[in-house]
C-alpha cells in the first residue's frame, strides 16, 4: 500500500513538473512582454527595454531554453520570478491565494453538500413535486455558463436593490474599502459581498451533484441491504442516512476529482466578474499584460490543486468504502 502511494505521488510530481514546464514554454513563446514597452510616447530606447526585459528574465532575444533554465532554477529554490511590474510573483500570488481559497472552499462545501442532499431527497421522493422541480431546475442551470450566470446574478442583485431601496447585495469586491465599524458591521459587509459570488459558484455544483446523487441513490434504494436494514428494525430515516446515503456517496466522491478542475475555471470567471482580487482575476489580467512568470506560476498552482483534489478523493473513497481499505 505504501509503495503504491509513493509511486502515485512520484507520478503526480512528474506530471506537475511537466505540465508547468509546458505551460511556461507556451506562455514564453506566445506572449510578448516587449509589446508592453513599445509604442510608448516618448519612445523608450531599445537598449533600456532590453536591459529591463533581461532583468525580468522576459527578453525574447534570449533563447527560450535559456530563459526556461533560469526560471526553472529559481522555481527549484521557491522563487517564481518577477511580474512585469517588477514585483515578486510569489508574494503577489500568496496574497491572492487566500482570496481564491476562501471563495472556493465556501462555494465547494455549500455546493456539494446542498447538491448531495437535494439529490438524495429527490431520489427518496422519486417522481414527486420536489423531484420534478429539482430535475428541471438543474437542467436549466447546467445550460447556463458561469459567465452568464454571474452576470444574471449581478443584474438580479441590482434590480433587487432598486426594488427594496437599500444596498442588500454588493456586487464588486470582497469588502468595502475603508469601512468603519465593529466586528458585526465588518462581518455583515463581507456577507453582503459574499452571497452572489458564492451562488454563482455553487449553483452549478448543486445542479451537477444533485443529478448525480439522485441516480446513485435510486440504484442503492432498491438494493437488498436497505430492505434488510429496515427488516432488522431500523427506522426508515436511519436506514436511509446510515446505509443508503453512505453507499451512494462513494461514486460522488470519485466524481469530485473530475469537477475540481472546472471549479477552478469557474472561480476564475467569478472572481473576474465580481472584482475579487484573487488568483483567477490575476490569471486573466496576466495574459492581457503578457506576464509570463505569473501565468506559469498559476498553472503550477492549478496542476497542484487538481492533483491534490484527486488524492483527496482517493482518501475519502477509502474512508467511505471499507473494501478499498482492506484490499
Amino acid at each position, binding site marked *: 500500500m505504501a509503495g503504491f502511494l509513493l509511486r502515485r505521488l512520484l507520478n503526480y510530481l512528474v506530471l506537475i513538473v511537466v505540465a508547468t514546464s509546458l505551460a511556461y514554454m507556451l506562455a514564453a513563446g506566445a506572449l510578448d512582454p516587449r509589446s508592453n514597452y513599445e509604442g510608448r510616447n516618448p519612445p523608450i530606447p531599445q537598449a533600456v527595454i532590453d536591459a529591463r526585459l533581461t532583468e525580468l528574465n522576459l527578453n525574447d532575444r534570449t533563447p527560450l531554453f535559456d530563459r526556461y533554465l533560469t526560471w526553472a532554477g529559481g522555481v527549484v529554490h521557491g522563487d517564481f520570478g518577477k511580474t512585469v511590474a517588477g514585483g515578486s510573483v510569489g508574494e503577489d500570488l500568496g496574497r491572492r491565494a487566500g482570496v481564491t481559497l476562501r471563495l472556493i472552499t465556501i462555494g465547494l462545501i455549500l455546493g456539494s453538500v446542498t447538491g448531495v442532499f437535494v439529490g438524495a431527497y429527490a431520489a427518496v421522493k422519486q417522481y414527486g413535486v420536489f423531484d420534478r422541480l429539482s430535475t428541471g431546475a438543474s437542467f436549466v442551470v*447546467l445550460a*447556463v455558463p458561469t*459567465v452568464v450566470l454571474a452576470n444574471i446574478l449581478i443584474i438580479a442583485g*441590482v434590480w433587487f436593490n432598486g426594488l427594496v431601496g437599500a444596498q442588500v447585495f454588493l456586487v464588486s469586491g470582497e469588502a468595502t474599502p475603508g469601512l468603519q465599524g465593529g466586528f458585526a458591521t465588518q462581518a455583515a459587509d463581507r456577507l453582503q459581498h459574499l452571497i452572489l459570488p458564492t451562488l454563482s459558484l455553487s449553483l452549478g455544483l448543486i445542479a451537477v451533484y444533485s443529478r448525480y446523487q439522485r441516480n446513485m441513490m435510486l440504484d442503492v434504494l432498491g438494493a437488498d441491504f436497505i430492505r434488510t436494514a429496515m427488516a432488522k428494525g431500523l427506522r426508515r430515516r436511519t436506514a436511509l442516512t446510515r446505509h443508503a446515503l453512505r453507499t451512494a456517496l462513494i461514486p460522488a466522491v470519485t466524481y469530485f476529482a473530475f469537477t475540481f478542475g472546472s471549479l477552478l475555471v469557474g472561480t476564475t470567471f467569478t472572481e473576474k466578474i465580481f472584482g475579487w482580487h484573487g488568483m483567477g482575476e490575476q490569471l486573466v489580467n496576466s495574459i492581457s499584460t503578457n506576464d509570463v512568470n505569473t501565468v506559469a506560476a498559476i498553472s503550477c498552482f492549478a496542476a497542484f490543486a487538481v492533483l491534490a483534489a484527486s488524492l483527496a478523493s482517493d482518501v475519502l473513497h477509502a474512508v467511505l468504502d471499507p473494501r478499498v481499505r482492506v484490499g
Partner: protein
Amino acid sequence: MTISDEELAEQRAGIDRIKAPSRLRVVAGRFSRSVQGRIGFALLALMFLLAFAGPYLGRWTYTDKDFMAFLQPPSAEHWWGTLQTGADVYAVTLRGMQKSLIVGLLAAVIGTTLAAVVGAFAGYFMGWADRSLTWITDLMLVLPAFLILAIMSPLFAEGQWPLFVLVLALFLWMVTSKIVRSMTISLKEREFIQAARFMGVSPVRIIFRHVIPNMSSLLAVDATLNVSAAILTETSLSYFGFGIQPPDVSLGSLIADGAKTAVYAPWTFWFCAGLLIVTVLAVNLVGDSLRDAFDPTAKRAGQ
C-alpha cells in the same frame, strides 16, 4: 425452378417485408417516445433554423452599422434593438449563434473521435502504448485548458478559427478516452474479436472495424454532451476576448458587451444569453434522452 423453390421464394419475400427491429430503429423509437428527447430535438432544430435561415429574413447584416440608431430598443426597423455601435442585435446574435454552433459541433466530433482512437489503441495494445497514452491523458487533465487556450488566442485572429476548434477539441477527450480504454480491454476478450485476430486481421483494422463500432452508443452520447461543453467553453473564452476574435462575433463576445449595458438596455444582453441557454439546454436534453434510449436497462415510462 421447382414448386418448393417457388414457395421458398414467396416465403422469403414475406419475411423480407417484415422489417427486422434493427438497433438503430429500436433506439430511434425509444428516443422519439421520450418527451424530453422530442422537446430537445425540436428546440435544437429550431435553433439551427434560426441561426442559418434567420439572417436572410432580417434587413441588416452583422457588419452593418445604423448610425441613426445607437442603443435603441426593439422596433419594426431593428427587431431586437441595436447595440451601442449601431449594430443590429438580431443580425449579430444570429451570426454569433452560427459560429457557436459550428465551433461546438466540430470540436465535439473531433474530440470524441480522438477519445475513441486513443482509448481503443491504449486498451487494445496495452503495454508501452497503453502506459504512454495514459500518461498523456493524465497530463492533459492536469494542464489548465482555459489558460492554454487563452495564451494561444492571438493565433486565432484573422479567420483562423478552425485552429481554435482543434485546440478546443484537444481538451475535450480525456475522460471519455479513459472509459473507452476500459471498455476496449473487456471487448478484446470477446469471441468475435478473437476470431478476427486468429483470421489474421491487422490490429488497426480490428480497432476501426470491430472495437470502435461496438462502442458507438457511448460515443454518440458523448459527442452530444461534448457539443454543449464545447459551446460553453467557447462562450467563456470569447467573453474574456480569448476565443473568436473581432471583427467576427460569437455569443460569448456579445454577452460580454451586453453585460455592460444590460441594466438599462436589457435587449443587448437577454437575446444572446437566452438563445445560448436554450441551445445548450436543447443539446443536453437530446444527449440525456439518447443515453436513456441506448441503455437497455433504463426504466422507461409505459414499459
